[in-house]
């Protein structure tokens, strides 16, 4: 049976006539305040439409055969760097959505930096649907007055399967974001015209976003300078927002492993990222695995955690220059921090920002089965380095049935004779055999 996480909220999130109150819950609450933000929203209509779309993302599932009814899970909210960000995944973890309320969309007080789960319930969503363009609204993340409830019994408890897939997916997405480049920027009309070419129904084939003349369209023919989109039907979730946007940018990950649409509104941005295909969640991609191999002293990680918490941004290059550190080490440290759920990534500013996932660190670190598999191989003495020099490493790793897999590492080029590698050619993260060799190297 799947492990459950009981979210214990002190009360229900709700929206009364003037304030959206978001009840928060965190396994690891860092600060002392129970309220992270309180203030006015300048463009509440756009935010409410984006949050409804986020809830639609969270409720959706694009697996061929959903094994479980898609439950409404609770998005994660980060308050910091003068912005508020709401993020979540579809049930299958193939779609990631994040609503950024920008500095110019807020008029309020950041009481404390932090990241937390917020209670998203059907009533709140219905209430968000009522928000219209002329409404004045405030937002409260957490309750300002501590002790609003007299006893511990009054919390609201929601039980949903532990979103381990989310946690794994969240770290992968940040890395993919940091490797993504802007390809197209479309006006509202161009975006609307583009979405008129969206194929109807569920589509198994890859589609490509291409530009011909002044027109953008989704086509099925791969050409130079097109953006690959697998499981294109997932984009339908975006359609209700398009009439409201100012513009839309499209980013593509360097290795074409994800594509991200950024919808720009007044004071709000909606980031919408698709995994390589509808049957592949971000959680299973293993993009971070080799970065997680380096072991850093806990003290150093804690120091960087505090450093980033204070600064609210994290620029590996600047940090390396500033502290006179080896850049590759700092990049790996970035991976480690992202893999631990300590960093998020902003596509526009091209910076990591502090976003400590509201889950226990040991929970997060226990989520990489391939990494655990690699450690087990080492423990059992199944890894044998055949030769090693500064250019290449050759090794044998025992697989099932005692058959030895051959691992060859030549700089960035890492290969193995196992089925996982043969099938995916490294596009879905490294196999446990390569990971084990890298760890021993």
């Amino acid at each position, binding site marked *: 049976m799947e492990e459950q996480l009981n979210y214990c909220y002190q009360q229900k999130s709700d929206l009364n006539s003037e304030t959206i109150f978001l009840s928060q819950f965190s396994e690891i609450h860092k600060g002392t305040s129970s309220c992270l933000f309180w203030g006015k929203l300048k463009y509440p209509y756009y935010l409410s439409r984006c949050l409804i779309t986020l809830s639609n993302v969270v409720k959706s599932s694009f697996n061929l055969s959903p094994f479980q009814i898609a439950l409404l899970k609770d998005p994660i909210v980060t308050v910091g760097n003068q912005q508020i960000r709401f993020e979540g995944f579809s049930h299958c973890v193939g779609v990631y959505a994040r609503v950024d309320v920008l500095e110019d969309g807020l008029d309020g007080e950041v009481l404390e930096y932090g990241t937390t789960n917020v209670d998203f319930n059907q009533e709140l969503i219905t209430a968000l*649907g*009522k928000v219209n363009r002329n409404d004045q609204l405030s937002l409260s993340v957490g309750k300002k007055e501590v002790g609003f409830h007299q006893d511990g019994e009054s919390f609201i408890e929601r039980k949903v399967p532990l979103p381990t897939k989310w946690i794994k997916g969240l770290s992968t997405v940040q890395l993919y974001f940091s490797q993504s480049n802007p390809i197209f920027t479309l006006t509202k009309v161009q975006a609307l015209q583009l979405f008129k070419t969206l194929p109807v129904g569920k589509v198994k*084939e890859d589609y490509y976003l291409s530009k011909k003349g002044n027109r953008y369209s989704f*086509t*099925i023919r791969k050409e130079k300078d097109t953006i690959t989109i697998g499981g294109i039907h997932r984009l339908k979730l975006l359609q209700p927002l398009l*009439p409201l946007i100012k513009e839309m940018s499209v980013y593509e990950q360097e290795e074409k492993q994800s594509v991200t649409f950024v919808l720009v509104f007044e004071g709000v941005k909606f980031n919408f990222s698709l995994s390589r295909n509808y049957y592949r969640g971000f959680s299973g991609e293993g993009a971070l695995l080799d970065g997680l191999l380096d072991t850093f002293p806990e003290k150093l990680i804690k120091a960087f955690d505090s450093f980033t918490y204070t600064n609210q941004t994290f620029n590996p290059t600047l940090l390396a220059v500033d502290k006179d550190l080896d850049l590759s080490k700092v990049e790996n440290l970035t991976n480690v921090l992202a893999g631990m759920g300590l960093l998020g990534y902003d596509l526009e500013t091209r910076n990591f920002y502090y976003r400590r996932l509201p889950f226990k660190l040991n929970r997060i670190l226990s989520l990489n089965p391939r990494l655990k598999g690699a450690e087990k191989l080492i423990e059992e003495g199944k890894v044998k380095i055949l030769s090693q020099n500064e250019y290449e490493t050759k090794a044998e790793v025992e697989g099932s049935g005692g058959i030895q897999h051959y691992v*060859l590492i030549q700089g960035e080029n890492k290969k193995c004779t196992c089925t996982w590698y043969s*099938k995916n050619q490294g596009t879905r993260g490294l196999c446990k055999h390569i990971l084990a060799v890298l760890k021993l190297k």
Partner: protein
Amino acid sequence: MLTTELESIIKNEEEIIPFLKTLSPKDKKELWSQLRRIKKGVYEFSEEQGRRICHYNDAQLLLIDVASFVICEKKNFSRITYKTDFGSEFFENEILPWYVPSWYSDYINNEKKISYDRVLQLSKKGFLKPTTSLIADCLAIVWDDDLFNYPETLKEHIWYLFQEETIISQRYSYVFDDRKNRRWIDIFTKLVEENHIEREKVITHTILTFTSGFNKTNTGWFTDLLLSLEITKEEILLHQEEIFTALNTQHSKPINTLLKYIKSIVSEEEFQIDLFIQYAGILFVSETKAVVNTALQIFEKIIQQPTTDKSDLLKIITEGLIQTDEKIQLKVAKLIVKYGDPLDEPLKDQISIYHESLFFSVKEVLSSFLIHEETYEEIEEKNCISVLFDENEIPVYSTFDEILFLIAQVIENNEVYHVELLLNYLPKLDQLITNENVSKLEPVFKRVLEVHTSRTWTKNVGALEKYYIPNYLNEYADILMERYPNELQKYKQFRNKKNIGDELKYLKETGRINFPLGVYYQLILYSRQLLKENQKVDFLSTPTHAPCWIAPQVLIDRIISFEEKGVAINLIDFQIAIGRIPVQDFKGKLTSLIQKINHQEIKEVLNYHFSEKALQTLTIDHPELWLQSVISRNIQDEITFLENKLNTNFDIERGVFKRKFKSEFASSYNYTKVKFFLENEVINDFNGIFKRDYLSSLFHENIHHNDDMKVLLLQPNNPNILLSKAFHSFYFGGTILPEVPEQTFELDYLKGLEKVWYKEETNDAPYCVLMGGILNPGNVHRDLSVEIWLNVNDKGIFDNKRFGAIIGEFQARGYAPVKRLTDLIVKRMLNISKKHNENLLEVLVGMVENMPSTPIRGIKKVLELIKELKTSHSNYLLSDRFKETLEVWKENKGLKSVINSILEI
């Protein structure tokens, strides 16, 4: 002790509650394993009776469920019989007062198999904490007076029906005293009439459901509820803000209803114009025409009001020009002309955004508002028919490691050309094998064996990877095991353990080619021959560029290398290689290289192939060496020359089929069968790839979905026999909707066509397959076909008139709804560029020219499109045949006007 007691209680149907009451948590843990054993033994499959039988009676089953209820943790709990109701009075009175499991509320809330009455009873006693979702679900299926039995029902619970998605839209109920079985809509109206619930609140809650994310059926049901309340103008005004917000709904039914309400109040003083117009963006981009039309009517009423800012409103209305429907665009244009000022520059700027996608008639109406005459950004003319680029060049492998990692992925079928790389590189790998590195092949052999012997078909794998490649590699593994018995022990153990016995098949020494993979089979045998002979030459036919092309210089170098090493050239290998050279102008570039070849006839074939010498001047001793080249070059004089010389024709080798239509009448519909056949069939039997049996198998036998592309790419310059076969097999059964497997194959052939259509095609087969794709019911097929059409037009290698003629020929026989074609044109083919519009006009004119004298259903839209395209290409000359057809069609009143317009342009 406890376990025996439990077993005895169940067996003898004794009182269980006193026993359960005494259990401590420790006892429960102890009893759990016993209980699990009992539960496992409840049902058993009886071989004799051929069904599952139950070893316990109903009373015993209840006892087991009661015991489970008390003993189990949530993760272990499950009921043994659906008859046990954990929310029943029995549980309420006998068990829950002394034991309520911590998971009880969760269980009942999730299972939702309980009545509304029971929910209230249990929650009143504090046993159950029902969720709003449970209450709503139970209430939606309330059958009778329960609605009035509890004060909270109408006060609180009934509103949950508006918050939570239930099956209320499908339910009927006896709620009132009159015992009438009513729909819930009627129940609500009666409740409102009799003042049981507040009318205002029902209206508000109903409108809110439209943006609650309910599904289409339920949202439609709530729309009907709103309609049944017959809300007044005053109420609409009162609720206008909620109504405007509800326009955000994703369903068209409520929007239509709400717009009707808005239309009825638009002239009222209290109507909040400023607020409403902020939602215009949502309305004008709607996919539903009725929504856009009503929105335009409302906006016209607003714009007529003296206080409104017409310029601002028109800028909003302009958003309606995004619609691809000519009538809607015209309505928007007329509003702009009627109320707009041609000197209003911001408005003109706004309109210019849509310039490219406007219909000609709309441009005419808006002429004084349009800034530019033409804003098409010209699309780069490709006109480049090369297929050899740096990007698709396949790397050359030379070291053991490189070849090893290549071979490891062949069985996964990652690329269509990988199998051929394996055949080329395995003989080379063999020469690099030592006792130190041979064991690295073990995982490869293991995987091959797993795929080969697996009872399920591994995804992405074709018959080549499932059978023929494993046959070859298993045999090679045997050779290596003999050569290196110690080094390959692990693999040997694995193979022995698998106990595969007879399943392990090897290649047979045979010249068999009479099946669609026959050529591949021969290539496998050839690879094995090279391996056994320790030859280190490259296959002539191994692609140098993905997916199948060969650079001409490389081919000549390979031939020279064969001659230098004294290796005989394999005919099939040579034929495939010649067929994979892109047909483009290499004249003069290869002359000196060709001269290095010793084999006189091969040298002459290449001289001919690269246009160094004329075919008619050369000596042809072995036609099988020339045939592929002649067919690939596809020059009619040369084909005729060789046909005459050999006193035959090459119809089957070139895939030149005729087609025949046959009308069939079924009980409810008529359809047409399409058959491809050879007009003047002659029995050729050239050697190699043109072997009669092989060609025949290509046309008649099925090919696995993961192999068809590979077979097609064996002769990329001559794919027509396979394309004809594809079309023949899809539609021989009739032009009714193809089944799913056929759809998959059809898509494969379209993908193949996309890869090999880089030069002018004189055969009808590619045009037929493309036509089948354009008119296919599947979106993906249609989209891909449009892309192929765009691409071949960009390259200037497409005959649009001919394509239109084929569409006309099939459409005249009711091949597919014309609307499917016209919708696709409007959505994807129209207004791409001026040149593409001209190409499209040619297609449509060609189509009409091949239509019968009686116009078919839906043809009016085609004529409207021709009118649209002809207007912007007035220099285009219409053929006499086309005009004659239109003259005949003019007799149809519905078409007369549009035909006159076309003929007048």
